[in-house]
């Protein structure tokens, strides 16, 4: 098993190295750092912005927005998905709304939130959450539809308190859907957060990308974008993947 894992890791590392090599090769051929800087140039810019520039300040602002929108989207999506998956009547009523919100372009929600609420932090976070809630709802609803009715009976017979039922019976059954929506959620949310910052915030990675876009500064756009990609990858590797492995430990029969 560990040999397989080691092989898998080395394949991933080689694949990543090939991507970097391809990028470096293309940058060498273009030979213009203002059009496409190579990975070493971008890495240098990231280091310089981290040490002497405002990289961490903007990264912190973006991360806070991602966290707030993620918490909101997961909480509301979980409740809506659970209710819709368990109550057919509610599902029948709310399903058309869900379809509409699923197909509403992110840009429309962002612009409307800024127009209605103003260029505020609340509008920014709300716009991102509104974009993500329908997706979480859909995934959780599928999980809720597949809940084991015998476990409900068991919990009722043994008079499990409601809190214990939610924690030990309900949520573990939904853990695959929660994990999947959390992982796709973070990937989607941070991208929308950048758009929100691009359009109406005065800090964050999106704001910095906007700034350097106006200056036609490709290297800095790449430096800020890739710095944040690395942070999100780190979150995926350090938090989300280990959590998923831990949550699925019991499946190993």
């Amino acid at each position, binding site marked *: 098993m560990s040999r397989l894992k080691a092989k898998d890791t080395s394949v991933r590392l080689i694949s990543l190295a090939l991507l970097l090599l391809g990028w470096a090769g293309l940058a060498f051929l273009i030979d213009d750092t203002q059009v496409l800087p190579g990975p070493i140039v971008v890495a240098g810019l990231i280091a310089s912005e981290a040490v002497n520039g405002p990289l961490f300040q903007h990264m912190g602002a973006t991360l806070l927005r991602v966290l707030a929108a993620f918490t909101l989207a997961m909480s509301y999506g979980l409740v809506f998905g659970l209710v819709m998956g368990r109550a057919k009547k509610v599902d029948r009523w709310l399903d058309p709304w869900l379809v509409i919100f699923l197909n509403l372009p992110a840009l429309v929600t962002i612009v409307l939130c800024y127009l209605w609420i103003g260029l505020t932090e609340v509008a920014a976070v709300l716009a991102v959450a509104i974009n993500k809630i329908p997706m979480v709802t859909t995934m959780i609803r599928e999980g809720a539809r597949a809940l*084991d009715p*015998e*476990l409900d*009976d*068991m*919990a*009722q*017979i*043994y008079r*499990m308190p409601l809190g*214990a039922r939610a924690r*030990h*019976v309900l949520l*573990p059954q939904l*853990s695959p859907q929660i994990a999947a929506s959390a992982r796709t959620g973070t990937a989607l949310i941070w991208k929308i957060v950048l758009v929100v910052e691009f359009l109406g915030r005065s800090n964050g990675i999106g704001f910095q990308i906007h700034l350097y876009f106006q200056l036609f500064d490709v290297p800095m756009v790449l430096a800020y974008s890739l710095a944040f990609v690395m942070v999100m990858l780190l979150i995926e590797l350090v938090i989300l993947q280990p959590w998923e492995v831990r*949550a699925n*430990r*019991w*499946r*190993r*029969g």
Partner: protein
Amino acid sequence: MISVDLKSKSFGSVQILGEIKLSVSAGECVALLGPSGIGKTTLLRIMSGLDSDFAGHLTKPNRIAMVFQEPTLLNWRTVLQNLTLVTGISTDKARNALSEVGLAGKEALYPLQLSLGQRRRLSLARAFVTDPDFLIMDEPFVSLDAERIEEMMELTQKLLNKRKIASLFVTHSQEEASMLATRIQHLRGSPATLA
């Protein structure tokens, strides 16, 4: 004493159960036999309080335990937690209960790491550990091989003998009924009634 005075039970326009009067006293074990689809599990669900949508009257105690057709365990919690979290009993009492059904030393395992027979033992331990007044068993030995069935029946018999519980169990097997039950009832007809 557990008693049901059922007038009828229907699913939509289809009447499944007719007039049924059944009571089980403390220390008595009633076996309910009948062909598949006759309504045995439906009657069981009514008597357990899981199904309250019927015409008639039910008298039952508060402390009820049930052994389901499938072990119906929390596969994501350990063997020990399956007793403590579900029933609210102490760890010590849970360990004793596991030992009583031959699962000592398996406390930290997850149910899917056990064999089917062991999972059924765990399900049995969960039912008995609550010291119920009324125990319901819905085909508790289904899909086990002959040797395991015999083991499980002996274990159930042993656990029942130690306690003065009113118990009702559904089975297809006359042999299982004869071994465990103090009284056998047959469900027959359409809508089904006790014969």
